[in-house]
């Protein structure tokens, strides 16, 4: 009797790229729910726009590159890019801003560099940084969270009108405002002390009001990702450890001038970035020790940008900078091969 052959191993673990990416999407849900509660419909509308544009752009690029559509679309990687970017955008960002960012991420940062697995830079962060540099005003128009402002007063239809057209007149007064990191930055510049600034209503229990709940949501999702091994624990551990360490050092030097480490860890995109952005395996370091170093590098850069740089938050820049360093880190952090050490 004759048989078909194939090479060993003949059994494989039930896993796939699509499954890993799907887990990332699931893990974002709790944080996203919190964001929606505190910042209104805009969050979800951004998400829908980003999803549609990303899928269309991915399909188009795959077709142009002659790849199997169904197979590669089902890897869900475009969706992850779209969602990461959508979460990072202000909730009332105009539709074209979201579209432009996603297009840049998928077409240029991903496919022109060779597609999934070959892109040296995190596509979502490339899209984000392009928007941040090109449209600083639109990108910094954040809403005041529910509980501080009247986000819930803005209904679905009004939100849609604002995002898709000339709805600026529909915006209630006092809806937009600075985020806690913005406040910290500007007030410190005015010579106030951290304790005084913390009395501002945008601050909650440990970090920005509303924000801290979204952060908690992302932390829960992120820990689940680590638990299911969809993300390597070393990157978030390295990043948060790096951020906390450098923040502690400065906090101990001058607590009136530098915010507490727990504030830094819980603020802005630190948790979200640590578990969801920095852990993108394609652009991160790939050796076990390298991942700790890579994460720590991001954490330290985030602090430097926040404390001394020109932007209130620095996760996107830090991730892109460490993306550049990843191959070098890999080269110098190769694990010791079995039998390399005597005895």
């Amino acid at each position, binding site marked *: 009797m004759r048989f078909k052959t194939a090479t060993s191993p*003949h059994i494989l673990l039930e896993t796939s790229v699509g499954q890993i990416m799907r887990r990332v999407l699931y893990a974002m849900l709790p944080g996203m729910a919190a964001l929606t509660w505190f910042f209104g419909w805009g969050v979800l509308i951004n998400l829908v726009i980003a999803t549609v544009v990303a899928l269309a752009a991915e399909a188009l690029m795959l077709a142009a590159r002659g790849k199997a559509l169904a197979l590669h679309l089902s890897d869900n990687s475009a969706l992850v890019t779209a969602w990461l970017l959508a979460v990072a955008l202000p909730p009332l960002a105009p539709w074209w801003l979201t579209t432009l960012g996603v297009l840049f991420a998928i077409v240029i940062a991903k496919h022109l560099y060779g597609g999934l697995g070959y892109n040296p830079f995190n596509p979502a962060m490339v899209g984000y940084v392009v928007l941040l540099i090109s449209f600083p005003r639109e990108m910094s128009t954040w809403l005041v969270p529910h509980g501080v402002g009247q986000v819930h007063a803005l209904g679905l239809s009004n939100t849609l009108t604002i995002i898709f057209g000339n709805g600026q007149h529909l915006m209630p007064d006092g809806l937009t405002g600075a985020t806690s990191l913005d406040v910290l930055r500007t007030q410190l510049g005015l010579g106030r002390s951290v304790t005084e600034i913390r009395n501002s209503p945008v601050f909650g229990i440990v970090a920005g009001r509303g924000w801290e709940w979204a952060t908690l949501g992302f932390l829960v999702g992120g820990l689940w990702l680590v638990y299911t091994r969809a993300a390597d624990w070393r990157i978030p551990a390295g990043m948060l450890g790096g951020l906390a360490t450098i923040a502690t050092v400065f906090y101990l030097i001058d607590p009136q001038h530098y915010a507490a480490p727990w504030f830094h860890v819980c603020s802005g995109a630190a948790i979200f970035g640590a578990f969801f952005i920095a852990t993108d395996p394609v652009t991160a370091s*790939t050796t076990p020790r390298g991942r700790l170093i890579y994460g720590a590098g991001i954490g330290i850069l985030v602090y430097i940008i926040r404390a001394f740089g020109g932007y209130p938050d620095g996760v996107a820049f830090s991730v892109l900078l460490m993306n550049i360093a990843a191959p070098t880190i890999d080269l110098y952090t190769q694990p010791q091969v079995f039998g390399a050490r*005597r005895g």
Partner: protein
Amino acid sequence: MSALFSFHGGLKTTRHKTESNQQPILVNPLPPQLTVPLRQHIGAIAKPLVQVGDRVLKGQMIAQADGYISAAVHAPSSGVVTAMELRPVPHPSGLSDECIVIETDGEERWIERQPLDYRQLHPSEVRGALRSAGVVGLGGAVFPSAVKLNLEGQGGQLDTLILNGAECEPWISCDDRIMRERADEIVAGLHIMVHLLQPREVLIGIEDDKVEAIAAMREACAGTNYQVRAIPTLYPSGSVKQLIKLLTGKEIPVDGLPADIGVQCFNVATAQTVHRAIDLGEPVLSRVVTVTGHVARPANVEVLLGTPFSALIAFCGGYRDGVERLIMGGPMMGFALYDDEVPVTKATNCILAAGAGIGELTPEQPQMPCIRCGACVEACPANLLPQQLYWHARAKEFDKAQDYHLFSCIECGCCSYVCPSHIPLVQFYRYAKNEIWAQEKEKQKAELARQRHQARLDRLEREQKERDAKLRQKAPRQAASTAVTPEADKLPIEAAVARAKPHRIAAPADASPASVAADDDRSEPNS
């Protein structure tokens, strides 16, 4: 008793041992024909000692070891040699190899068996007896055991002798059954190995899910200082490097051998054949094979070497519906066969009939790009970076692949197993290793050709000088007659051509004796 150590990576796979290990070892009936390959071991192919038409007895040596790393081959039953030719053998290539075909007579008439008292013999005599009994490692690597039982020139003193009863691959259970039923024979073989190697300690490593085997071995070892150790059930704990690490904490150095760190490791089934070869005078004629997966009655079967797989499958009730792939060895490292008309060899530890659903065969998955997730790094027991190795092997950058320690890869398949992109990683490493070996051979051949060409140029120059010198001596006398020589040279050739012409027409154009044998000195020191 020292604590167990651990190794990096590894897999918890499904086990599937109970399909075949619940009943005693069966004996396959004598088949009408045995096809005995001459290459059933690592090293030089055995040299045949019989001719077509010869009557052979059970246990008679029909091919002898050719060189130090080689092993003898014996007639598994009595009968008549009916052919000596290339026949399909179990090999991933599907190629044929030299075989001796024996038509069995059903009488099972033995040669005279000569039991030896190894205590009275010099170790080299015992090793010689093992060599001529065709004893090789039965775990699958089939390295001649006599070579591994010789410590001369390898540092002399052995710290630890390890008996490998781990059997970590899913589905395989032949060693499990042998340990349960023949523990005494294994320990008897172990005594001989201990006599030859004089180790400071003897450890027997068995995966902790083989409770009965551990109990049987402990009982058989009672009263000796041999220690039976239960090791964690974690693939590939039965790989030599990983087993030694687990039991002793020592790592075989890169490019090194177990003996370099004072350890030597043998399979439990090998110990049994050592006992039979010395204490009973019986060479290796059969082995226990696990026939499992998608067959009607999975079992462990004692089968004569040279028995066709198809006969063995039939003995186990035949295939069930849905068999897609026939695997020799386990599902992690075994290779798929093109045909079941191939003989059982000393390397055949398991025949796995696999199909979707049963035998858990995973259907072919589309390959996706590597996303550098690092799952392979977590799984790799050799502590390699499989994703980087893959990158270079795929690009055929063999130098860089070697920088990433390609040759430390034990081809266990853990990386391919966990890869979410379904990249055939191990296959890339096998390919790269083979290419590097082939290039190395090419280079050696080119170097040889260069030397021979240079030698020829030197010779021609020397001859020319000698001729010139002679001519100068003769020149005054023979100045007139030199012009005639070239024609005189040609005359005999033309005459010969004329003689040969009728002969050429008569001879068929392709009746060329096969005096050309391609260079095939394959030797992979893979114990």
